[in-house]
C-alpha cells in the first residue's frame, strides 16, 4: 500500500503538481509556498474525505497539516521515504498448549488506512502477534488468516468456511481455538459455531475489540490474552464470546455464543449474556480462569456438522408493518424466516396472515421477541394463539440472532417442516432453557 505513487483521493490538480516536481507519496519534501514560506515534511496520501485540493503534509514535529495546492509554489524532493524494515527477529511461536488463532477481520486487527482516513481491518496477524508477546508464555500459537473482512460482511456461507477452518485446526491437534472477529456480528458467528460443533476437542473462543488496537487504551490486549488463556485452559469445549466484563480493564467475561448479544455500539463491555449468566470469567491480572457455570459440554471428540443455509431472513416486526414484506420473502424463494415480534411474540393481523401464507408455502417461521430479555409465549393473548394455530415456531428464550443462526444451520440439513419444528425446540448448545433465573436480567451497566 505504501508503494502507491499517486493517490486517488487527491484532485488531478494536486497529482499534476506532485508529478511536475517528481514527488510521490511519502516523499520528504521542502515545499515553497507562493508567498515565500517554506514547509518541510512528508507528503501523505489523503483520506477519502475533505477537500481533495488540500495537500496533507506530515510536519517535522509529527503533526499532519493541510495546505491548499493553489498556495504551493515549488516542491523540492529531499528524500523518498521507504518504510522501515521491522527490527528484531520474528517472535517464536511460544510455549505450552497449542492454540490456533483464526483471523477474520474487525477492529481488533485494525490500523490506520489512508484510503478512507478511518480505522480499517488491514493488520496482518503476524503484526498483531508481535504486539502480544505475552501470549508466548501461555500457548504455542498457530496463525491462520482466514478472512480480512468487516464484521458486517460476514454471512452464512462464510460461517461454513469458518467452521471448516476451525474443524481443520482441531483435527490438526489445536487445544484451543481463538477466532478474531469484528464485534458487530460476532455473536451471530459464535452462535452458528455452537450448532456446527456438536461436540469438540477444544473451546472456540471469539474475541474482538471495541476500541481499535492502534490505540494504547485498546481493549484488544486483554481480550486476546484472556481468550488464548481460556482456549487452552477451559474445561468446556463450547463456542463462546470473550470480552470485557466492565468498562474497567482486568476482568473478561466469557459468554456462551448462543447467549451473547452486543448491547452497546462502543463500550468495551458491550457484550452480555441474555437470559443466562456468563459461563466463566478471566482475571487478567492473575492470569486465572474462573468457571461460573457448572454444566457445560466437556472437551471430547470433535463432531463437526458444517454448512449453513443462506436463504434465511431475520426481520423485525414494527407497528404498521405490511404483510407484503413477508410475501416478498416467500416469492423470492427464501427457505425460512425468523421474525422478531413484540412482547411475547406478536404481530399485526396483516403480518399474521402473511406468516400463515408463508407456513402454507412450506417455510418454517420462527417467532422471537424484540424485548431482547424474556421468553416468547404464544398462549397468553389471542394473537399469540392465532399465530400458534398457523404453525409458527416460538423461539423460547433464544435470542433472535441465535434463532436465526440455528434455523440457518437446521435448514442446511433438512427442509422438512415437522423436523425443523422439532429441532428448533430441541436444546442443542444451552441455547434454550426452561428456567430463567431472576438474576439473568441485566442492562450491562457496571
Amino acid at each position: 500500500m505504501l508503494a502507491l505513487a499517486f493517490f486517488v483521493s487527491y484532485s488531478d490538480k494536486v497529482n499534476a503538481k506532485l508529478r511536475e516536481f517528481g514527488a510521490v507519496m511519502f516523499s520528504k519534501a521542502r515545499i515553497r509556498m507562493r508567498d515565500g514560506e517554506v514547509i518541510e515534511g512528508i507528503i501523505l496520501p489523503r483520506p477519502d474525505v475533505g477537500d481533495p485540493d488540500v495537500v496533507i503534509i506530515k510536519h517535522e514535529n509529527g503533526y499532519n497539516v493541510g495546505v491548499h495546492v493553489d498556495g504551493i509554489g515549488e516542491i523540492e524532493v529531499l528524500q523518498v521515504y521507504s518504510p522501515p524494515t521491522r527490527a528484531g527477529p520474528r517472535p517464536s511461536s511460544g510455549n505450552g498448549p497449542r492454540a490456533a488463532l483464526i483471523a477474520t477481520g474487525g477492529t481488533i486487527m485494525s490500523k490506520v488506512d489512508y484510503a478512507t482516513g478511518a480505522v480499517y481491518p488491514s493488520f496482518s496477524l503476524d503484526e498483531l502477534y508481535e504486539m502480544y508477546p505475552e501470549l508466548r508464555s501461555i500457548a504455542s500459537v498457530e496463525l491462520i488468516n482466514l478472512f480480512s473482512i468487516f464484521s458486517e460482511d460476514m454471512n452464512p456461507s462464510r460461517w461454513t468456511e469458518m467452521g471448516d477452518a476451525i474443524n481443520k485446526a482441531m483435527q490438526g491437534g489445536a487445544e484451543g481455538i481463538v477466532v478474531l472477529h469484528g464485534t458487530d456480528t460476532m455473536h451471530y458467528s459464535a452462535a452458528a459455531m455452537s450448532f456446527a460443533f456438536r461436540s469438540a476437542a477444544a473451546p472456540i473462543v471469539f474475541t474482538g475489540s471495541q476500541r481499535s488496537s492502534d490505540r494504547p487504551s485498546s481493549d484488544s490486549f486483554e481480550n486476546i490474552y484472556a481468550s488464548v488463556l481460556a482456549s487452552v485452559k477451559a474445561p468446556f469445549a463450547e463456542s463462546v464470546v470473550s470480552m470485557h466484563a466492565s468498562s474497567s480493564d482486568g476482568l473478561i467475561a466469557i459468554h456462551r455464543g448462543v447467549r451473547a448479544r452486543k448491547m452497546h455500539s462502543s463500550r468495551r463491555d458491550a457484550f452480555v449474556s441474555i437470559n443466562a449468566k456468563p459461563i466463566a470469567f478471566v482475571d487478567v491480572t492473575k492470569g486465572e480462569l474462573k468457571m461460573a457455570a457448572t454444566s457445560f459440554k466437556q472437551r471430547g471428540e470433535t463432531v463437526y456438522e458444517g454448512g449453513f443455509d443462506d436463504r434465511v431472513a431475520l426481520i423485525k416486526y414494527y407497528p404498521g408493518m405490511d404483510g407484503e414484506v413477508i410475501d416478498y420473502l416467500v416469492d423470492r424463494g427464501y427457505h425460512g424466516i425468523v421474525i422478531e415480534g413484540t412482547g411475547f411474540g406478536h404481530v399485526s393481523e396483516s403480518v399474521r396472515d402473511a406468516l400463515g401464507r408463508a407456513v402454507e408455502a412450506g417455510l418454517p417461521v420462527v417467532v422471537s421477541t424484540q424485548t431482547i430479555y424474556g421468553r416468547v409465549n404464544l398462549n397468553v393473548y389471542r394473537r399469540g394463539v392465532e399465530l400458534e394455530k398457523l404453525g409458527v415456531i416460538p423461539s423460547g428464550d433464544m435470542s433472535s440472532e441465535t434463532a436465526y443462526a440455528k434455523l440457518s444451520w437446521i435448514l442446511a440439513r433438512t427442509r422438512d417442516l415437522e423436523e425443523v419444528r422439532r429441532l428448533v425446540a430441541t436444546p442443542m448448545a444451552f441455547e434454550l432453557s426452561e428456567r430463567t433465573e431472576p438474576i439473568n436480567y441485566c442492562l450491562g451497566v457496571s
Partner: protein
Amino acid sequence: MVKHKVGLEIHVQLDTESKLFCRCPTTLRNDDPHFTIKRRLRPSMSELGQVDPAALWEFRKRRVYVYEGYNDSTCLVELDEEPPHDMNEEALSTALAVSMRFNAKPFDEVIVMRKVVIDGSNTSGFQRTALVARNGLVTFMDLKVPIWTIALEEDAARRMGENGREVIYRLDRLGIPLIEISTGPMEYPPNAIMDIAFYLGQTVRNTGKAKRGLGSIRQDLNISIEGGAKVEVKGVPELSLIPKVIQYEVERQVNLLKIRDELNRRGLKPYSPDLVDVTSELASTKSNLIRSVVEQGGKVMAIKLPGLSGILGFELQPKRRFGSELADRVRSWTELGGLLHSDELPNYGITSEEVERIKSRLGVDSFILLSGIEESELVEAATVVVDRINEAFKGVPEETRAANDDGTTKFLRPRPGSARMYPETDLRPVRITKALLERAASLMPEPIDEQLRRYVGMGMSRELAMQVVRSPYSRDVDRLISIYGGKASPTLIASLFVNTLKYIGREEGWSVDPIVGIEEAIKLYADGKITREAIGEALEEYAKRRGSTRVEDIVRERGLFKLSPEDVERIVRDTASKLGTSSEAVIMQEVMKRYRGRIDARDVSAALKRFNSSS
C-alpha cells in the same frame, strides 16, 4: 552566563461552553466522584511503524490508572468508550483569532492528531491535538518573538494522587480545550523570556474565552546551551519562576558537560551493571532505611562504579547532585525510593566503618547502594542507574523534566519524538473556511502593549494600567468604562477593580458576583446619587454582607445619598452663620468634615461662591 536558547510553550485553557470533542461542561469539580474505572495502557505503533521512546518508558512502569468521573459531567468520550464528537467551533475560532493576532498563518485544513501520552493522563493513551497555524511573529517591548506553531489540543485528566502501582486521575479536566503557542528558540535574557511568556498568555486571555485562575495558563520551556541538548521543562508553575528555571537548567547542562570532560580526562569507559550483595556488610547498621528493608527480608546491593569518586556528588543545581539525577531515574522507573552513593557516605546512619567494609568487599572506592525487597527490582534499578551514567559520557541527555518549586528540575521521562503522532481516524479534517476566518477576525484579542497604551491614554497611571492588564478583570473594566466612562473616570473604575476587589474578593458564601456590586456602585456614582468617597464605604459593607444586600439599599440604610445642590447651599449658609465667618476655607473644612461621604466638594465650592457673592 553561558549562551542559551529558550523556546516557550504556553498552554491556555479555554472557557468554552463545552469540551473540545464532547459536549460535557469545562468545569472542574471538587465533590466526591460518582464512579471510578481502572485501566492499563500500551504503546501503539505510529503510522510510520516506530514506537516512541517516551511511550515505551511509561509502559514499562506497568501502572494501573484509576479514573474518577461524574455521571452528569463526564461522558463516554472521556471514558474512551465512545469516539470523539466534532471539534468545538468556539474553541477553533478562538485559536484562529489568536493565530491572526500573532500573525501566524492558518493551515487550510486542520487535521486532528493523536499524540501518544501513556502516563495515564488521557484515557485513550493519546492526547488529541491539531496544528491550527504556523510561522507567526510578534514584537513585544522591542523583542522579536518567533511563533512557530499554534495548536488546539485537549487538556489531560487531573492527577489526584498515587496508591502503590495505581495512579489516580480525575476526568473533569480531560478534554478542556487548550491553545498551545510554541515559540522558536530565543536568546534573550531569562527576564525577557518571562515577560514574553506573560505577554503571550495574557493576550490569549484578552479573547475573553480563556479560563482564569490557578493552573489555567501553564508554561513549558525548551532550554539548550551550545554542546548541550534540548531539555523540555514541563509545568513551570509561575511566571516568576521562569528566569530561575532557565538559569538553573543552563547551569545543569554546563555541569553535565564538565562531568563528561572529567570522565574522559579520567579515561573511564561506559559501565555495565556489576552488582554485589552487601546485605551482610550492613547487618548491624543503624540506618533506619536499610534496617527496615532488611527486616522485611530485603537486600542491599551495591553497584561497582570504579573511578567515579567526586562525580557522583558533583553539584549540578543548588542541592541537586549527579547522584540526584540517578535517583530520579530510579524513582521514575521502579518502585524504589531512591539510592545512596559513596560521595555522600558516611551519612544517613551508615558509619565510616560500614563504608570501609563495603569498599573492601567491592574492591572499589565509588559505588551506589540500592535497597529493596525484590531482587528483580534492584537489578532493574541498577540497569537504569548504569544507563544514566553511561549517558553522561555523551553529555546532556535529551529529556523531559519537571520544575520543582525552587526552580530546579527533576527527570520526568525521555523526550518524546515525532513518532508519537498519528492521525485521529475518528475525526474528519476541518476545512478552514472564509466564514470561519471572518468569525475569528472579530474575536481577535487586543495585544497587551496596545491595551496598556489605551489605558494610559485614558488618563490612568502606567502602574494602574499594568495592574488592570494583569488582573482578570480587564474586560469588566473595559465594559464599565464604555458604559459609564463619561461620568466616572476610567481611573476610578479601574482602581475599584484592582484595589477594592481585593477586599471584596470572591470568597465562599457569595451568592452573587462581586462585580455586580461594583457595577451598581459605579452606576449610582455616575447618576450623581453618591459621592466618590461613599463608593468605598458602601462596597465595604456590601462585602461584609457577601453581596446579600443591594448597594443602593446599603446607601439608603446608611444615609449615604449625595446631598442635593439646594441642601448644600442651605448647609453652607447655616454653617457660615453658626461659625460667624465668611472664610471659604474655614466653611469648606467644617462642611466637608460634618457631611463626609455625602457631599461633593465641587458642590460646596459652587455654593460658597454663590453665598459670598450674594452676601
